[in-house]
């Protein structure tokens, strides 16, 4: 039920992006269209077990999570101060390089690269916090946060990463034990995190209706 609901929210976010396309056409948010399309296709494929190889779809999850990381980090770098751009690009590339090393050399391509996921989440949380701090330092402007698309995207992303962090931290240990409760917990946490993220994304795209903003 929860899984279906989170899928509905992913599709809803995609539909809103398509509807709002004209308004986001000239902004970095336009890349959400191919990204969400990819996510929906991945979820659909996963739903019908299309990506299962060696009794697992971990390999495609590794790829999708890495794309997700690169997509959100690039978006956040664009939103953040230009002065920091070079350093942030190095940080993101380092995290991506570590992901490659983790997936191919440490945990293996056919297993979920949880160490890399944790590193990616830490980097994303840092970028989100930097964005929030940048918002706080903006002086002389009357800002309405709830009408700011970037605020919703960052909020959704923050809660998504925070919600899944502990789960992935215990993933390797718990999957080895094949604990059913852990599987149930995964369903709850993962779907709740997706629900939060995609509802925040939908709100952010709807914000383009109200006012054209630089963020």
């Amino acid at each position, binding site marked *: 039920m929860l899984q279906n609901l989170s899928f509905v929210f992913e599709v809803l976010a995609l539909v809103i992006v398509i509807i709002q396309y004209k308004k986001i056409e000239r902004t970095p948010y336009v890349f959400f269209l191919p990204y969400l399309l990819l996510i929906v296709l991945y979820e659909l494929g996963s739903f019908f077990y299309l990506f299962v190889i060696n009794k697992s779809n971990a390999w495609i999850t590794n790829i999708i999570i890495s794309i997700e990381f690169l997509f959100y980090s690039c978006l956040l770098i664009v939103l953040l101060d230009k002065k920091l751009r070079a350093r942030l690009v190095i940080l993101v590339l380092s995290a991506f390089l570590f992901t490659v090393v983790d997936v191919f050399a440490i945990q293996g391509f056919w297993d979920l690269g949880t160490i890399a996921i944790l590193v990616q989440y830490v980097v994303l949380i840092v970028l989100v*916090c930097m964005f*929030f701090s940048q*918002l*706080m330092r903006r*002086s*002389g*402007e*009357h*800002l*309405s*946060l709830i009408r700011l698309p970037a605020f919703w995207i960052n*909020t959704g992303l*923050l*809660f998504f990463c*925070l*919600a899944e*962090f*502990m*789960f992935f*931290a*215990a993933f390797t*240990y*718990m999957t080895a*034990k094949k*604990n059913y*409760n*852990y599987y149930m*917990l995964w369903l709850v*946490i993962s779907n709740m995190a997706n629900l939060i993220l995609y509802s925040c994304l939908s709100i952010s795209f709807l914000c383009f209706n109200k006012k054209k903003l630089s963020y």
Partner: protein
Amino acid sequence: MFQQEEVIVLIIAGTIMLLLLGIFIVSFLFFYQKKHNSHITEKSQLQAQFDQELLKAQLEIQEQTLTHVSREIHDNIGQVLSFVKLSLASAKKMDDKQKNQKIDENRELVAQAITDLRDLSKSLSFERIKTLGLQQAIALELERINKSDIIKTHLHTTGEVYEMDGQKELVLFRIFQEALNNAFKHAYARNLRISLIYAADLFTLTIEDDGAGFSVADKLKENSGSGLKNMDNRAALIGGSATIDSLPGEGCCIKISLDPITRENYANGNYPNSPG
């Protein structure tokens, strides 16, 4: 099995704590932004209030100038010219020698009227205060008042005169005018001492009179004390402070102090420099 359950509890507790951290971060941002927005609103309101007060001060100075001009025209120039007219009319019946004498007398009177008119054209308007500067503007105003012999004024300037922000000088001049008006009309003062102290980090304008005096506390309670409140508000508006000392029968001393470098005009300093 027990260990695995413990790990699950740990995951749930950890996730809840991390989510709470997220809620705290977002709430903090909201709270901060709300404060920031109210700070901006407050600042724009103070700016609007300042602009309004400035405009009011300009209008009052203009009104004062017009009153002075009309009084001068009516009481002085008008009288002189009427006298000249009558004098010239009476000259018809005089012989040539007396006529010449009369013409000379009237020429002197007309010359005096022209001088008075010229002085009048130099009357202080807010534009002139900007051009002259506060010290010169006060000096000229006192010079004009001294001519009337109603009140004796003394100006003391200490330190090297420097220019302040035009708006500050305008408001200071208006406070000076208000104090002068009070000393003249209400206190029936005979002597007025103005002191301007130009220190590097503090400017002080002191206006002392030997008039009837009053109880400051009583005056502020009454509606008639609005002039004093005005002075206080205006001093605060330009980032300064006003001290009013007076007792019945002992004259009055008004002291305005301000930091000449401070750029912020809308004073009181009640709003925080940064939100949060």
